[in-house]
């Protein structure tokens, strides 16, 4: 009797698997690969979109922006994803015209560990650069003290922490530092991994956050989402317009809104140090990379449908996952760009 039950259960399981497999093979499979930073929101979108259009299935591998660019260039995936826009040379290396579609924005926050100062440290952008250059070495440096009236800053050496692994976060952060310090541009520059003048390297957001948490009088930088989820203290920065701005989803979106006026048609723009009263200075787009001329008619059509849905509906899911949605003016531009995709 018991045996029979087991047998029939087994049969049921096999049937169910076969049914699922049958369904999956009937759906159009669209493959993508790239950035790890937007992975949580992308997987949310893909699972939500499966309810909207069950006939298409997205498969996204978060292998890193560099890998995403390589794979879309080699056409082994249907779309790529990157936290850094492609250089002219990289665009030329692709076999067809690649379009950047900005999806959401992220920000990088400056976190710190000073016993007794759990929030509200204010730092000028130039001062952050000089700390990372090793020019400002103590917390009670007159330049930091001047911006933090009424806060007693300790006479302690600043321990600088940075990412050791190549990452889009480092790219945005060093881009920001290059924008505010000529010396940084000359000595270090911007990139996914750079030659740090000083400091300790931690692997990943968690490595940097852990190091900052363990080390008194340290400073580091992590993604906004990571800092918020883990309730890390963050510094308020002075932006290009001379206003003190706290990192938040709103101030990140404000950075893109500030950039909208001089947004290039291909969206290859860095969002650091943008004008605007509320614009947070260390923000950046993350992009999907698709070919203007789609090779596969069915896949191309489905991809465009998804992109339109993402713009209309998906954007609203962003802030719950601590990503900044695109501001309205940028959304309008992107909607026009999606129309140029041919299939």
């Amino acid at each position, binding site marked *: 009797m018991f045996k029979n039950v087991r047998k029939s259960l087994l049969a049921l399981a096999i049937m169910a698997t076969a049914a699922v497999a049958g369904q999956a093979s009937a759906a159009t499979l669209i493959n993508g690969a790239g950035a790890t930073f937007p992975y949580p929101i992308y997987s949310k979108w893909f699972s939500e979109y499966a309810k909207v259009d069950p006939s298409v299935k997205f498969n996204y591998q978060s292998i890193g922006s560099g890998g995403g660019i390589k794979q879309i260039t080699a056409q082994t995936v249907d779309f790529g994803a990157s936290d850094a826009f492609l250089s002219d040379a990289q665009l030329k290396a692709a076999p067809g015209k690649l379009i950047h579609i900005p999806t959401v924005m992220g920000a990088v926050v400056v976190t710190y560990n000073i016993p007794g100062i759990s929030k509200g440290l204010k730092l000028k952008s130039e001062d952050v650069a000089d700390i990372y250059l090793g020019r400002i070495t103590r917390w009670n440096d007159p330049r930091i003290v001047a911006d933090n009236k009424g806060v007693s800053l300790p006479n302690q050496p600043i321990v600088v922490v940075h990412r050791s692994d190549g990452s889009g976060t480092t790219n945005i952060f060093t881009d920001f530092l290059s924008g505010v310090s000529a010396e940084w541009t000359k000595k270090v520059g911007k990139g996914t*991994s750079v030659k740090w003048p000083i400091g300790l390297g931690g692997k990943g957001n968690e*490595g940097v956050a852990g190091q900052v948490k363990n080390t008194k009088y340290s400073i580091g930088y992590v993604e906004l989402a990571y800092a918020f989820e883990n309730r890390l203290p963050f510094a308020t920065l002075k932006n290009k317009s001379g206003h003190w701005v706290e990192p938040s989803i709103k101030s990140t979106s404000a950075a893109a809104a500030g950039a909208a006026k001089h947004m290039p048609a291909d969206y290859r723009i860095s969002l650091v140090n943008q004008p605007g009263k509320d614009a947070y200075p260390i923000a950046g787009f993350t992009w999907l990379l698709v070919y203007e001329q789609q090779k596969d008619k069915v896949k191309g059509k489905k991809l465009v449908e998804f992109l339109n849905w993402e713009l209309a509906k998906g954007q609203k899911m962003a802030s719950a996952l601590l990503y900044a949605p695109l501001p309205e003016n940028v959304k309008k531009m992107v909607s026009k760009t999606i129309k140029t995709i041919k299939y």
Partner: protein
Amino acid sequence: MSDVTASHRWKIEKGLSGDFIFKAMTVLFAFSILVILMLMLYEMVSQSLPSIRKFGSHFITGMDWDAVQGDFGALPFIYGSVVSSVLALLIATPLAVGTALFITEIAPRRLGGFAASLVELLAAIPSVIYGLWGILIMTPWLQQSAQPFLQKYLGFLPFFDGPAYGVSMLAGVLILVIMVVPIITSITKEVLTAVPRSQREAAIALGATRWEMTRMAVLPYGKSGILGAIILGLGRAVGETMAVTMVIGNNPQISLSLFSPAYTMPSVIANEFAEASSPLHSAALMHIGLLLLVITLIINALARLLLWSMSRGAARGAKL
């Protein structure tokens, strides 16, 4: 009659073909390893060619690692790998050989068996777990207790100079010690168990104490095996990536102080390969991989040489 011969011949043929298949397969498998190694070497050389062409020997002596400027020198990584592995082995070897001797010679059989299974358990823990333990427990302890202590009493030495961050060459060495000890211990234990009873009994019959027996009869017999165990430990230490990356501080510098952060060859590959910013950057990382392979080959060759000279020495000793 003819029937019998036919079946006999058939049997022989079948036997021959079985032998042939067996031989062919073993040869194939043996050569496939060689072919895979060759392919790997070819692929690594061809992928790192841009870096080899551009930097040549400067790559090995260069101190700068700058992906933005496209200037790559691997010396700090080579230094970090070699120093961390060698120091780890210097600490781990006496610990591991001592543990193995305790298990085989001193401990009562049950306790020995228990200790042996504990050691094997340690060897089976994935390295990322060691890394997490290192970053969450060991480095704060180093930073708050061990490093201040060392600095207070041994601070006059250049090895214990500078601020205590926790993450450091010292942390890398310690995590490697913990990871290498189980490997050396378990192999040394096997080697020592294989020493014949007669060897021990002869020593005891001559009036040797337990220490004398171990020193004169057991250890010399197992010498080459123990050396092999140490080499395997070194192999693991040189190649270890995850745990070391998490605690060593990832700063490509050469400093005498064990307190300052360092960087190893596998760590920089793991850190930067996924997001390498230019073809030259990827090539330079591949070049480091190639150097790592070469260093491993050199270590293995040296070990072979050592084993060979030792066994020759032993043979001569036996003749006399």
